[in-house]
C-alpha cells in the first residue's frame, strides 16, 4: 500500500528540502518507486537539490489546472531507478492550489508509486495546509535551537489537529562538539521537550553543501557519514529497526590532552 509522507518544520531553513530529497532518493535506492513533490509554490528548490532543474517542462500547478497530464510533469531521475520529481511552479502563488487539489494529486500519485514525499514550505498557512492535505503521516525536521524547536512544537500540534498519526522527528544540524561542551541541546533534551519518537539524527556537515553544489543527494555517497545518516532514516521510514549510533564528538587536541593528564572523563558520548 502506498504511503504519503510530508516533511515539515514550521521554521524555514532547517533542512526540509534537504531531508525530502535524501529521503526520496534513499527510498528509491532501496528499490521503492517514489514521487517527491515540491509543494513550495513560488520558491522551488527541490529540483536544484536533486540536480533536475534543467529538465523541468511542466509543474504542479499546471497539473492541477489540467494544462498537462501528471505523467508529463513527472521528471524521472536517471541516476536511480524509481525516483520521480513533481516540481513546484516558480511564478505562481500558493493560492493557486487548494487542499482538495493536493489530496486528489496525492491519490493519483499513490496509484503507481510506493511512496509520495512532500516537501512542505515554511510557515503554517496555505502552503502548509496544502502539504498535509494528502499526507498519511508527517516527519518533523528541527535543529537543536530554541526557535526551531518552538516552531516544531507548534507544527506537532497542528499535525495532530489534522488527524494525522503522531509525527516522527528528525534532529538536523547536530554538532557533537558543541553538545559535549554543553553548548547545544542533546538528543534527550530535545526529546524531553517535543515528546515524539525520533526517526533520525543528521550531523551538521560540509558534505550537505558539497552535494547541494553538485545537485547530487548525499544519500548516494557511500562513504559520507551524513549519507549514512540518511540511509538509516530511510530504513526506519520503511519500518526497519536501526539503532541510533551515538554521535561521539571527536574530542579534539585540547580534550585529549586533558584526558591524558587525568583531568577529564574518559569519553563524552552524546
Amino acid at each position: 500500500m502506498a504511503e504519503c509522507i510530508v516533511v515539515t518544520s514550521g521554521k524555514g531553513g532547517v533542512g526540509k528540502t534537504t531531508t525530502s530529497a535524501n529521503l526520496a532518493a534513499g527510498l528509491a535506492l532501496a528499490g521503492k518507486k517514489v514521487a517527491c513533490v515540491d509543494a513550495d509554490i513560488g520558491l522551488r528548490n527541490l529540483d536544484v537539490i536533486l540536480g533536475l532543474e534543467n529538465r523541468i517542462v511542466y509543474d504542479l500547478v499546471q497539473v492541477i489546472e489540467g494544462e498537462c497530464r501528471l505523467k508529463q510533469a513527472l521528471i524521472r531521475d536517471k541516476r536511480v531507478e524509481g525516483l520521480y520529481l513533481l516540481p513546484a511552479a516558480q511564478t505562481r502563488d500558493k493560492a493557486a492550489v487548494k487542499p482538495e487539489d493536493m489530496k486528489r494529486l496525492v491519490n493519483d500519485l499513490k496509484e503507481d508509486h510506493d511512496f509520495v514525499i512532500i516537501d512542505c514550505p515554511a510557515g503554517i498557512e496555505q502552503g502548509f495546509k496544502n502539504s498535509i492535505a494528502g499526507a498519511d503521516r508527517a516527519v518533523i525536521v528541527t535543529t537543536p535551537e530554541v526557535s526551531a524547536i518552538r516552531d516544531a512544537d507548534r507544527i506537532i500540534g497542528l499535525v495532530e489537529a489534522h488527524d494525522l498519526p503522531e509525527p516522527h522527528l528528525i534532529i538536523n544540524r547536530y554538532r557533537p562538539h558543541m553538545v559535549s561542551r554543553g553548548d547545544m541541546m542533546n538528543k534527550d533534551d530535545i526529546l524531553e521537550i517535543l515528546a515524539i519518537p525520533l526517526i533520525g539524527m543528521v550531523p551538521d556537515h560540509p558534505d550537505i553543501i558539497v552535494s547541494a553544489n553538485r545537485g547530487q543527494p548525499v544519500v548516494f555517497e557511500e562513504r559520507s557519514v551524513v549519507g549514512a545518516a540518511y540511509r538509516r532514516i530511510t530504513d526506519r521510514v520503511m519500518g526497519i529497526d536501526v539503532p541510533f549510533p551515538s554521535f561521539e564528538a571527536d574530542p579534539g587536541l585540547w580534550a585529549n590532552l586533558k584526558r591524558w593528564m587525568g583531568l577529564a572523563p574518559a569519553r563524552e558520548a552524546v
Partner: protein
Amino acid sequence: MRSLFQRLSEAIGPSKSQSKDEAKQRLKLLLIHDQVDLPQAQLDRMKAEILEVIAKYCEVEKDDGVEFKLNREDGHVALVSTIPVRRVTARA
C-alpha cells in the same frame, strides 16, 4: 591548590558555560506560554463562564475591576484574576 594545568585549562580551554541549559529552560517556558496563549475570544468566554459560577455564591462586580490575565512568572504561567466581591450571598 589548583595546578598550573588547571588554571591554564580554565583560561584557554573550552567555555564551561552550559548554554544549552539556558536554551532548554527558556524553551520550556516558551512552550508553556505558547500553549496557554488563548485567543482573546476564548479568554473572554472563559471569563464569562467563571463569573457565572462565582455569581452563584457571591455578588461580584461584573465589569469594572474584573481582571483576567495569563501571567508569565519565573518557572510557570499562571492564570491570575481579580474579582471584586460585593457580598457573599450563599452559605453552605
